[in-house]
């Protein structure tokens, strides 16, 4: 850029630089579901606040782990990002385009693809693997008909499915191979961001390792960004650059994987981390485990104040009334009123 460029041009350059660092952004996203009673005269009797004000930014090439108990809203958040569920508030931005705007097209969403938990349910049993991989290419007219077979073979090779298996149907594959096929299908549209919702939870330990290695390789080789949802913290720590911990539809802690999982600060993250059993018998006996009482409260009727206070060992009067905001603490963000006063 010439030195004499006007100021405005410089600002544009700065802006585009900032935008290139962030590829996916969630701005204060809400996904609420109405609870209705009655058949003819529906009456709204409540709201399930599955996602309740989530803001996040995903950088290019970054892996963001999203963890939390079942019912915390992590899958709903994934579906909201994908546009499979409408956001009831806030916006989702992909490469500077607002996906939640009415004008957003399918074309804009192409760069965003999803891998689901259950590869037994997410593949069409009546399409051979080759057909399943060719379908998105045809629908989006990404290749000429003559070039499709070559691209399909390339996709299969990328995920380690032998080319001779392309004529087979999903039921002829094991769970791990099916998940590879589902990943290849997500890659067919050349996405820049992949949202993977518990992609290894249904798999055995040894197969899980293969899929984790594959995801790590794809992120590295293709420069993909990944939102990785899992409930297994050791899996998340292995793969993620940053980790967001969700509780009742909100993010309670967000920071680097190392900070959040090895030195958790929010009382909920601490309990979550201490509950993970380690494959080390001596370490297990020496460990002090924080066992949380009860189940997570229902998102239909969340407690007032900090949503975690009924199960929190450190809750004081203020926690029952004041909702804590996500605020910087020790190099990460934590939403806890008492975060500075907690024992180390």
């Amino acid at each position, binding site marked *: 850029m010439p030195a004499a460029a006007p100021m405005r041009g410089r600002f544009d350059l700065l802006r585009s630089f900032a935008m290139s660092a962030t590829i996916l952004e969630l701005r204060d996203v809400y996904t609420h579901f109405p609870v209705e009673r009655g058949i003819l005269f529906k009456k709204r009797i409540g709201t399930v606040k599955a996602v309740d004000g989530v803001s996040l930014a995903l950088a290019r090439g970054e892996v963001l782990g999203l963890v939390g*108990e*079942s019912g915390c809203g992590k899958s709903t958040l994934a579906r909201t990002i994908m546009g499979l569920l409408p956001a009831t508030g806030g916006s989702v931005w992909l490469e500077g385009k607002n996906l939640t705007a009415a004008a957003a097209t399918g074309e804009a969403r192409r760069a965003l693809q999803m891998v689901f938990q259950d590869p037994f349910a997410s593949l069409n049993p009546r399409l051979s693997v080759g057909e399943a991989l060719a379908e998105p290419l045809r629908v989006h007219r990404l290749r000429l008909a003559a070039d499709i077979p070559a691209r399909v073979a390339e996709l299969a090779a990328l995920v380690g499915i032998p080319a001779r298996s392309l004529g087979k149907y999903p039921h002829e594959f*094991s769970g791990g191979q099916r998940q590879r096929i589902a990943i290849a299908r997500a890659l067919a549209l050349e996405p820049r961001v992949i949202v993977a919702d518990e992609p290894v939870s249904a798999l*055995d*330990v*040894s197969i*899980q*390792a*293969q899929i*984790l*290695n594959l995801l*790590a390789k794809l992120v590295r080789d293709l420069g993909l960004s990944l939102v990785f949802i899992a*409930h*297994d*913290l*050791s*899996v998340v*720590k*292995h*793969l993620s650059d940053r980790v967001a911990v969700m509780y009742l539809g909100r993010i309670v802690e967000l920071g680097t*994987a*190392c900070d959040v999982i090895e030195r958790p600060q929010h009382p909920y993250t601490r*309990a*979550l981390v*201490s*509950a*993970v*059993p*380690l*494959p*080390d*018998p*001596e370490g*297990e*006996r020496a460990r002090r*485990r924080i*066992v*949380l*009482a*009860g*189940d997570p409260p229902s998102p239909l009727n969340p407690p007032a104040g900090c949503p975690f206070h009924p199960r929190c060992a450190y809750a004081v009067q203020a926690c029952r009334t004041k909702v804590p905001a996500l605020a910087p603490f020790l190099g990460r963000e934590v939403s806890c009123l008492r975060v500075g006063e907690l024992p180390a």
Partner: protein
Amino acid sequence: MPLLEVSDLRTSFHSRGGVFRAVDGVSFTLERGETLGLVGESGSGKSVTCASLLRLLPSPPARIEGAYARFDGLDLLRATDAELRSVRGKRIGMIFQDPMTSLNPYMRISEQLIEPLLIHEKISRRDALARALAMLEAVGINDAARRLHSYAHEFSGGMRQRVMIAMALIARPELLIADEPTTALDVTVQAQILELIKKLQRELGMAVIFISHDLGVVSGLCDRVLVMYAGRIVESATVDTLFRSPRHPYTRALQRSIPALQAKGAELYTLPGLPPDLSQPISGCAFAERCEFAVEACRAGGSPALAECALSHAHACRRAHAGEI
């Protein structure tokens, strides 16, 4: 005398497609009060082993053969139906993996809880209900008095699993068989359930067979661990020995593929290939096809036998026994 002594248990499923050898010569003993872990991948025969002991598999297609499975002197493999009924639910309790499908949706929880008591003990309905209430409280269900007469669908997954545990324990069994009781649950609920099993085990002095594919869960709970592969036990050791010095290549491979023990960014060890097809005859060691140490001799002859390499540490790898690994 051990509480349970299983010798050469073999369970196969017979169908038009052939014979599927799900459990192929499993032997082990369990002392009173001991916790035995049973680990392995899906299809390795863990669940079938335990279901065979209680003869819970429909026959046909299942066929159970074997030398014997003595539970306190009674051979479970040859017991009459009446003898089995006196053991099931009374002296041996079982927790199944999936609490969603193992509870009866049409029966109130209270009815399901007192059923084993009414069958096995001379007890009035009122006393049985009092015990059911005490048991629900013991497994940590809040507001148990109100919950007692609910139906299964009114409970969350973690609470249903606790109801299952209460059902298995209400008759104070001497042996609890827990088949992946926490696999479907969140880690926080899993921690609650594991603490509960430990506590009840101390109080009742019962023995536990704990089936899991999660080595982390097993390491915190069990005294001794059996590792299964393709229907056979490939390694048996105390939990400390198994984690500190595993000998069988399969056990080592399992440990190396757990993300918790690896540095971030390091590639996880992965086992090549798939477990063998158990409907086909296997020559030599069933793990040889996936084993990094396998040599030609491993694929020849019969299956390698489980043999001791140290006190209470046995494995079934010929090369490790020969000191070649």
